[in-house]
C-alpha cells in the first residue's frame, strides 16, 4: 500500500444564503487563516496550492488570476481546477504521492449570492448545437432524470421527499448550515413544481462559503497535527456529457469514481466498512441514486432505508448528517469541500450534537451538478 496523505488543518466560513460583509477573496482569506492556524503553518511552508474555480461562476474569464493573493500564494506553484473541491483534493493527493511536495493547500469557494441569473447561466452548460436551441431549462434535465429513476421503480416520490425532511432536520444541529428546517414529506410534495417531478423543496438552495484544507505527507503529519485524518482513497470519473448517449437511470460516474476510491483504500465491502457518508444531494433523488451507485445500498433499497431511518443520525449508515446540500446549501464547486469538512469533524470526534458514535471510516462524494456527469469520491479514516 502506498503512502497515505493526511488532512492536517481545515478552515471554513459559515455557509449562508448571503455574505454581504465579505468579498469572494475575503471568504477564502477567512477560511485560509483558520486552516493555517490549525496546522500551525504559514503560506511560505506550503509547496503547492490547488484552487477550485469555474469561470462563469466567478464572473471572470481566466478565474485563476484571482485565486492566489488571499491564500498567500504569490510567487508559488498555484493552479486552479475547474471541477469540484474533491477533484482538487485528488490533485493535492497526487502532488504529495509524487513525493516532490510535502504540504499542499486546497481551496474552494462559492459566492452564489453574487450571481443574479443562476438558472440562465447553468443553461450555458448545455450543448450549444444540440440542446440549447430547445430552450429548455437545466432543471428540466433533472426532471427527466428523476422521472427515469422513479419509473424504474428504484424509489417512490415520498421516499425522495423523505431525504429532504431528513437532511433539513440534520442541518438544525449544524451551526454552519444555512437551511435547517423541521418539515414533513407533505411540505415537499406540496411545494411549487419546478420541472415535474422535481419540486422546489427537492432542490438544494444556493449558499455562499469557503473551505481551505492543509494536506501533508505521512512523514510530516506528526509535526503538524495531533489528530490527522487520512485520505485513504480517492477516485473520479466522468460519464458521457452528451445527453443523448448517457445512462439516465444509474449514476455511472459515481459508481466508477467510488470503485476507484475503494480499490485504493482496500475496501471490498463498502456497505459494511463505511461508517458514515456525505453524498451529493443537490436534488433529493440524487442522494438515493448516489448511495446505490456507491454500493452502500442495493439498487432500489436506499429509498426504503431512508424511510426506515437507516440513513438518519443514529441509523446503521448515517448519510449527510451535516445537512447535506439540502440543509447546508448548494455550494457549487465548494460542495464537496463541505462534505469532506464534515467527515474531518466527525472522524476527529468534534461534531458535537450531531456526532456519529464510533465513526472510523467516512465517504464523501461530489457530483458537478446539472447537466454534467462528473463525480468524485474520497474515503477518509481517523
Amino acid at each position, binding site marked *: 500500500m*502506498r503512502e497515505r496523505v493526511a488532512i492536517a488543518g481545515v478552515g471554513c466560513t459559515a455557509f449562508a444564503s448571503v455574505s454581504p460583509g465579505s468579498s469572494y477573496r475575503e471568504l477564502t482569506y477567512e477560511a485560509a487563516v483558520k486552516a493555517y492556524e490549525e496546522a500551525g503553518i504559514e503560506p511560505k511552508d506550503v509547496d503547492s*496550492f490547488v484552487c477550485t*474555480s*469555474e*469561470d*462563469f461562476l466567478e*464572473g*471572470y*474569464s*481566466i*478565474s*485563476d*488570476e*484571482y*485565486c*492566489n*493573493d488571499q491564500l498567500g*500564494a*504569490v*510567487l*508559488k*506553484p*498555484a*493552479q*486552479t*481546477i*475547474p*471541477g469540484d473541491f474533491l*477533484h482538487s483534493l*485528488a*490533485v493535492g*493527493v*497526487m*502532488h504529495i*504521492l*509524487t*513525493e*516532490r511536495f510535502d504540504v499542499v493547500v486546497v481551496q474552494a469557494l462559492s459566492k452564489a449570492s453574487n450571481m443574479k441569473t443562476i438558472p440562465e447561466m*447553468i*443553461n*450555458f*452548460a448545455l450543448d*450549444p*448545437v444540440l440542446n440549447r436551441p430547445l430552450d429548455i431549462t437545466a432543471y428540466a434535465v433533472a426532471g427527466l432524470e428523476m422521472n427515469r429513476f422513479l419509473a424504474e421503480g428504484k424509489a417512490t416520490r415520498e421516499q425522495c421527499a423523505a431525504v429532504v425532511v431528513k437532511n433539513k432536520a440534520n442541518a438544525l444541529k449544524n451551526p454552519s448550515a444555512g437551511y435547517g428546517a423541521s418539515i414533513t414529506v407533505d411540505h415537499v410534495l406540496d411545494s411549487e413544481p419546478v420541472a415535474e417531478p422535481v419540486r422546489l423543496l427537492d432542490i438544494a438552495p444556493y449558499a455562499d462559503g469557503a473551505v481551505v484544507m492543509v494536506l501533508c505527507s505521512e512523514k510530516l503529519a506528526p509535526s503538524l497535527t495531533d489528530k490527522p485524518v487520512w485520505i485513504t482513497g480517492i*477516485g*473520479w*470519473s*466522468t*460519464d*458521457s*456529457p*452528451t445527453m443523448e*448517449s448517457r445512462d439516465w437511470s444509474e449514476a455511472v460516474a459515481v459508481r*466508477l*469514481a467510488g470503485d*476507484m476510491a475503494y480499490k485504493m483504500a482496500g475496501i471490498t465491502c463498502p456497505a459494511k466498512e463505511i461508517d458514515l457518508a456525505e453524498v451529493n444531494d443537490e436534488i433529493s433523488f440524487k442522494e438515493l441514486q448516489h448511495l446505490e451507485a456507491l454500493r452502500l445500498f442495493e439498487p432500489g433499497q436506499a429509498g426504503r432505508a431512508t424511510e426506515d431511518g437507516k440513513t438518519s443520525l443514529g441509523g446503521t449508515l448515517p448519510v449527510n448528517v451535516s445537512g447535506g446540500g439540502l440543509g447546508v446549501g448548494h455550494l457549487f464547486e465548494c460542495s464537496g469541500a463541505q462534505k469532506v469538512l464534515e467527515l474531518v469533524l466527525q472522524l476527529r470526534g468534534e461534531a458535537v450534537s450531531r456526532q456519529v458514535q464510533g465513526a472510523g471510516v467516512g465517504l464523501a462524494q461530489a457530483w*458537478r451538478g446539472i447537466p*454534467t*456527469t*462528473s463525480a468524485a469520491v474520497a474515503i477518509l479514516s481517523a
Partner: protein
Amino acid sequence: MAYQRVAIVGAGITKFVRRAQETGKELAAQASKMALDSCGMTMKDIESVSLGTAPDAFDGVHMKGEYLADGAGATRKPFMRSFVGGGSGVYAIIHGWYHVASGHFDTCLVVAEEKMSSTMPHPQAAFNTIYDQFTERPLGVNLLWIFALEMNRYMQVHKIPLETIAQVSVKNKLNGLDHPCHQEGITPGPHLTVKDVLESEVMVWPVYRLMVSPVSDGAAALVLASERVAKRMTDKPVWIEGVGWHLDTSYWTNRDLYYPRYVEYAARMAYRMAGITDPRKEIHVVEPYDPFAYKELHHLEGLLLADKGEAPRLLEKGVFNRDGELPSCPSGGLLGVGNPISAAGTMKVAEIFWQLRGEAGARQVARPVKRGLAQAWGDLMQVGTVVVLGR
C-alpha cells in the same frame, strides 16, 4: 526520487485555422486520435485524461471541460481539466505528469483544445472579462493594451530597438511555413522582412499587427506513459525530466513588468527537478511562449537562457535560429503556426518531443539535441509553466 518516471510516447495536432468547421469536441477527438495512432495505442490503453482549454467565454460554454469530455475520449474514465489561463497548454502536460508520476495511473492522454472563433466578431471582447470588474474592466481594456505597456517597459529598460523585436516575428513566421499545421495566411510570404513587420498597422503602440499571434481554432494531444508502459510502446520515449509552475500576484499594476519573475521561479523549479545547474549548456532547444514578438525574448531571459537584456543581442547574432547555438521556436511558435491558446502550448511540447526524436522534418534543428524545454505563460502577465524534456 520516489515518483514514477513519465515519458511522452505519442503526439498529434490538428491544422490550426481561423475558423474551424468542426466543433470543439471534434477538434479534440481528431488530435487525440492522431496522438494515439502515432504510438499504436487506442482509448482502451488510456487510464486517465487530462484536459487543457482556456476561458469558457470563447466557446460560450459554461463548464467547457465537461462539454469537451467525450471529444477528448474521457467517457467513463477519470477525467480532469486544469486551468492556468494561457499557461494551460503546457500545464496540461504537468497535470498529466502527476497523474502518472504519483502512481495513480500508467497512462494519461493529454488533450488541449481551443475554439476562439465562436466569439463573434473577435475574441478580444471576451478578453475584457479577464480584468478586475471594478478597477480595470470599465476602462474597456483588452490584451493588446496591457502587452503594449509591458513591451514598452521592456524596450525602455534595455534600450531595445523596434527592429529587433520585429526580427522575432520574421524568424518565427518563416519557421512556421515548415510546419504542416500552420495557419494559412499568418505569414504574408516567404520573403517577409523586418521592414514588412514595421509597415504593418500599429495596434497599440509599440505593438504592430505582425508582432501579434493570430486568433485560431485547433487542438493538440500527447500520450503520457509510465516507464514500464513506455518501454513497451516505443524505442524512443521522451522523458519528462522536470516540471515547474508559479503564479504571481493578481495585482499586476504593482509589478515591474520588464522581467517575468514568475517564469524564472517556474524554470528554477523545473531545473531543480531535472538536475540542471547550467541551463544555457544543458538545454539544447527551446520553445518559449511567443504570443507577441517581444515575449519570446522576455521569456528566454526569465528562463535564465539569457541575461536580463541580453536576449535581443543574441537574437541579432542568430543564436536563436534553427541553425544557431540555441534554436528557439523552431516550430514557428504562436506567431508562425497559430495561437489556439492552450493547444498552442501543447504544440510547443509536441515540437520538443519531435525535435528530440529527430522527427521534426524540415524543422529539425542543426545541432544535436538531447534536452529541450517548452514554456507557456498566461493570466494577467502572471503565470509561468515549464516542462523540461530529455531523451
